């Protein structure tokens, strides 16, 4: 049984906040990704779980036992460090065998060799076993670090941005391999990353953290389509989500007039959106919409006007930045075959189904229209 419970974990480094009041539950065999920008507190959280750092407040439980008093060596936790932390004086084989020779494990030599070879083959580094680690590429070092963690068959895996120092192509293929591996191994894993694609594709659930505090925990779709706050919405997606202030007038059961981006238009809404909007004091609201949902060019939906500020072709898609009538910049993702000249006048629109409503003061999520089956 290797579920993890973090309760109110707090750690300050002098005046600097590492994490504050972090409460998180990870189910047995669950793969949880912890996502946040640099300095968010991700590594601190991992170090607290591993026991490398002791918390100022709060506790860590594995299953039903509290591990706060246990040394890292006794927690049966394996960690893959962002810097790999391989032993420089050893070969690949010796690095992977080192944990198995420790007083905690003390396996017989034959079994050590068998396990090391098994995982080396799985990670495709079996031809490198006798190489000193200085002679390895980054990708090979990363696999060795992974192998060193795997051979122990621990209760919990902790991974600190294992793919961040790999080139994009390798990162992509390793991501797929990790996904496959976790299916095979079935160990409770906490995976830390600053890449939202990794967080969403690998995790059963995603925990979003920033400034030392957990902002939201949920399934990848939940976090992406129903972000708890504007901050969470901004952390996911590239280009970043568009957030604009809007004034709502004349709210009725099925429509409301929206004043935003220098224009006014009538927005069709549903009953639950209307009732959620009841909770807002005042008539302003924060609207969020993803660049990929922006419709550019003439058809019925494009009721907003603007001028092209910049156009970046990126292959299959292009990023278009539009100066709206009121001056706010709107980012849109358009198909790669289209092209736009800078300073060209343009019409665009945002479908009602892709709008997310946020409370203007607390920036918390209010409501969005329900996504229908088969929505992209």
């Amino acid at each position, binding site marked *: 049984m290797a579920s993890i419970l973090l309760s109110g974990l707090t750690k300050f480094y002098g005046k600097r906040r590492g994490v504050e009041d972090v409460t998180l539950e990870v189910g047995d065999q669950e793969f949880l990704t912890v996502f946040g920008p640099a300095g968010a507190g991700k590594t601190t959280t991992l170090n607290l779980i591993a026991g490398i750092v002791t918390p100022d407040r709060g506790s860590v439980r594995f299953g039903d036992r509290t591990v706060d008093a246990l040394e890292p*060596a006794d927690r049966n936790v394996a960690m893959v460090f962002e810097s790999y932390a391989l032993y420089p004086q050893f070969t690949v084989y010796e690095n992977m065998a080192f944990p198995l020779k420790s007083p905690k494990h003390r396996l017989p030599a034959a079994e050590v060799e068998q396990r090391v070879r098994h995982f080396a083959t799985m990670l495709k580094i079996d031809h490198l076993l006798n190489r000193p680690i200085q002679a390895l590429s980054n990708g090979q070092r990363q696999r060795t670090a992974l192998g060193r963690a795997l051979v122990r068959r621990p209760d919990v895996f902790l991974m600190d941005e294992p793919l961040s120092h790999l080139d994009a192509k390798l990162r992509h293929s390793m991501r797929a391999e990790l996904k496959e591996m976790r299916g095979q191994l079935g160990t409770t894993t906490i995976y830390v990353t600053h890449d939202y694609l990794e967080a969403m594709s690998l995790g059963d659930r995603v925990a979003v953290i920033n400034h030392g505090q957990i902002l939201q925990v949920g399934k990848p779709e939940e976090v992406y389509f129903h972000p708890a706050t504007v901050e969470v919405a901004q952390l996911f997606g590239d280009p970043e989500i568009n957030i604009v202030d809007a004034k709502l007038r004349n709210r009725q059961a099925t429509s409301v007039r929206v004043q935003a981006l220098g224009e006014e238009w009538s927005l069709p809404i549903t009953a639950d959106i209307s009732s959620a909007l009841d909770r807002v004091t005042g008539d302003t609201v924060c609207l969020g919409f993803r660049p990929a949902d922006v419709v550019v060019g003439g058809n019925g939906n494009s009721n907003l006007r603007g001028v092209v500020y910049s156009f970046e072709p990126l292959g299959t898609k292009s990023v278009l930045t539009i100066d709206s009538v009121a001056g706010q910049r709107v980012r849109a993702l358009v198909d790669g075959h289209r092209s736009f000249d800078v300073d060209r006048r343009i019409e665009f629109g945002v479908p009602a189904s892709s709008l997310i409503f946020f409370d203007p003061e607390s920036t918390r999520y209010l409501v969005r229209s329900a996504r229908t089956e088969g929505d992209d």
Partner: protein
Amino acid sequence: MNRSRSPLAKIGKTLQIFLLLFYALFALFPLLWMFIMSIKPDSQMLTTTFIFTPTLENYATVLHSDYMQFFCNNLIVSVAAVLVSLVVGAPAAYALARFQFKLKEDIAFTILSFRFAPEILVILPLYLIYQRLGLYDTYFGLIWVYQLITLPLLIWILRGFFEDISPDIEAAAQLDGYSWWQVFLRVLLPLVKPGLVAAGLLCFIFAWNSFTFPLLLSNNVQTSTVIALRYLASDTVHYGQVAAAAAISALPEVILALLIQKHLVRGLSFGAVKG
């Protein structure tokens, strides 16, 4: 560099080589002179320079006396001092590198400051203390006072090496199931080995060459540095024998340095290997 050089650059390079050669000669000349002195008979010492009849009599005289006993004393005291410094200094260097505590930099500076004070400055109070404690003229006393020479150097060199090792490696070893002490012995010490070698050798050289401390804090338990003085007898100065004694005394350091040359260069320039 394969690009064709301008004449000015060529002259610069030649000048560089010439200057380096000159400096090498300048630095090595005293050793050469000492060696020449040691194989010159006393009669020709002051009358000739490079042309003389070489003799091994100086060496014979020195070796047949009780000189070797003092040579051994020096060896015992210096090696022991370095070993004590290693055992004490390595954990101290680690603590200074890794932990945060009040007055850390003050303590570090205080340790280094032991090297600033000329030995003559502190020798009188030390003499009185040693007499009082009964440490005068003992091996133990000398080894202990040599720590003033060897320990600061060792701690400062090793501290840099420990700082170069990523703390992640220690954390990884702990997670792998090793206690702190085992991590220190099996993972950290091998990684600072170049530093241990470099610092150990430098400390040995300083301890070996030490003169003031054994001169004033010891009498019968004497080192070869002080004993070489003996040959400055009251009637005449046997320069040849002094030189022979000095040459024999210099031998261990030179041999050691040549043997560990490779480690020394790496130890002093690169620092510990990064993981």
